[in-house]
């Protein structure tokens, strides 16, 4: 049991060599790798933390965006509702206007139709009245009346001289006397003598019987008519009828549509 000094020194050297070898092959690499892993883990943790922060930020951004979008959505919805309401009102107004126009057109057409019908009716009434009057007068005509008519005719011929138009009659060589009744020869002679007296000539006189005249007689030359005729009165009556109808319709036309409408509404 003693120390072999060579072994002692050799073991010291061995130990130092082993220490170097282990440091080179064991501790160094292991510690380095452990450090590296620790660093990596730390870095990884930092990465994770950073990513978590990023994710948190992204989440916050997303939430904000979502909120903004929601607000925009609500705003758009509100605007759309408003626009839809405005459009609806406009359409309603337009429809009302259209209905109003149609109503006006219809009322106007109705008024026209009514007016036409009335006019037609009045015309028929006038026509009928005149026809009846003509018939009545035809039936009433008799000899004494015809005598009176001829006398009236003669007095009118005489009046031409007074009015100065007899000179117009002088130039006529051929004259026609139309009458609604047959004129007897005595009266024909009277008329001829009267015309001779007026014109100073002896023209050729044709006595013609015509249904155009109603209980009347007339002298027809080129351009002139002289006579007495019941139909003239009736024509005057017709003119009066026509005039009154026209004036009535124009008065109705001049009335405003609202007044007409009101009138219609009150008296349907």
């Amino acid at each position, binding site marked *: 049991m003693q120390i072999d000094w060579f072994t002692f020194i050799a073991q010291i050297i061995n130990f130092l060599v082993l220490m170097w070898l282990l440091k080179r092959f064991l501790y160094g690499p292991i*510690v380095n790798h452990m450090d590296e*892993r620790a660093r990596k883990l730390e870095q990884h943790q930092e990465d994770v933390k950073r990513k978590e922060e990023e994710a948190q930020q992204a989440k916050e951004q997303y939430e904000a965006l979502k909120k903004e979008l929601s607000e925009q959505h609500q705003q758009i919805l509100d605007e759309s509702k408003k626009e839809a309401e405005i459009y609806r009102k406009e359409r309603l107004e337009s429809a009302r206007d259209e209905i109003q126009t149609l109503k006006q057109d219809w009322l106007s057409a109705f008024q026209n139709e009514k007016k036409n019908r009335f006019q037609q009716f009045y015309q028929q009434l006038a026509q009928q009245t005149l026809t009846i009057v003509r018939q009545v007068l035809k039936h009433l005509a008799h000899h004494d009346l015809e005598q009176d008519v001829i006398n009236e005719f003669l007095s009118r011929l005489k009046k031409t001289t007074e009015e100065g138009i007899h000179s117009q009659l002088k130039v006529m060589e051929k004259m026609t006397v139309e009458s609604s009744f047959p004129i007897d020869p005595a009266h024909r002679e009277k008329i001829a003598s009267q015309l001779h007296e007026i014109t100073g000539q002896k023209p050729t006189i044709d006595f013609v019987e015509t249904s155009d005249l109603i209980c009347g007689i007339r002298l027809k030359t080129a351009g002139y008519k002289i006579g007495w005729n019941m139909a003239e009165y009736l024509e005057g009556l017709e003119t009066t009828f026509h005039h009154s109808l026209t004036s009535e319709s124009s008065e109705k036309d001049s009335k405003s549509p609202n007044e007409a409408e009101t009138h219609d509404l009150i008296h349907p």
Partner: protein
Amino acid sequence: MELTPDGLIYWQWKWVSINATLVFTWVVMGILTVGSWLATRNLSAHTRLSRWQNFLESLVSVINNQIREVTQQEGIGYLPFIGTLFLLIAVSNLLTVVPGFYSPAGSLSTTGALAFLVFIAVPIYGIAQQGLTGYFRQYIQPTPLMLPFNIIGELSRTLALAVRLFGNVMSGTMIAAILLAIAPLFFPILMQLLGLLTGLIQAYIFTILALVYIASATQVHEKQKTQYSTEH
């Protein structure tokens, strides 16, 4: 039989003799070096580890933690010295289960050399930590009268370190040999198993003691620093 492997001399030239202690030390060194090289060849810094790497990292971590616990300092600086001490002694003692293998720790030359290394390492680490004067001032603490006792204590603990390891390992071998002679069947196996346990414990004790000595040399300074800062 030989009490120590120093007696088994394979080759000798004058005072240079290659004995079993050196040869088996080289064997252990070879095993440790090659093993380390093989194990650390494909290290990766990823989170997924191979079994070997995991084992080695655990081993290094355990040693590191022990150093940190004892010295209350970061252990990386002491790791090569302390770790090598532990691994050399532990592997040497564990390999005694192999028939024909003599633990180099059973040689007083080896344990003396290791104890001497500790004896040298303590002032080296101490001076490195607290400077030359700082380290040597502790020999005259609490009074210069204590200087001889401190020096004696330094030497005696080194001697104790060497002899303790040698005695334990050698005795284990001795007991195994004696029991083999008395009861050759089961007892030697049990004693071998006990020898494994003893070997590991001795490796641990030797390493821890070395660590404690180093720590005492480096921590004095820290205490002084604390006192200084509290006084002022």
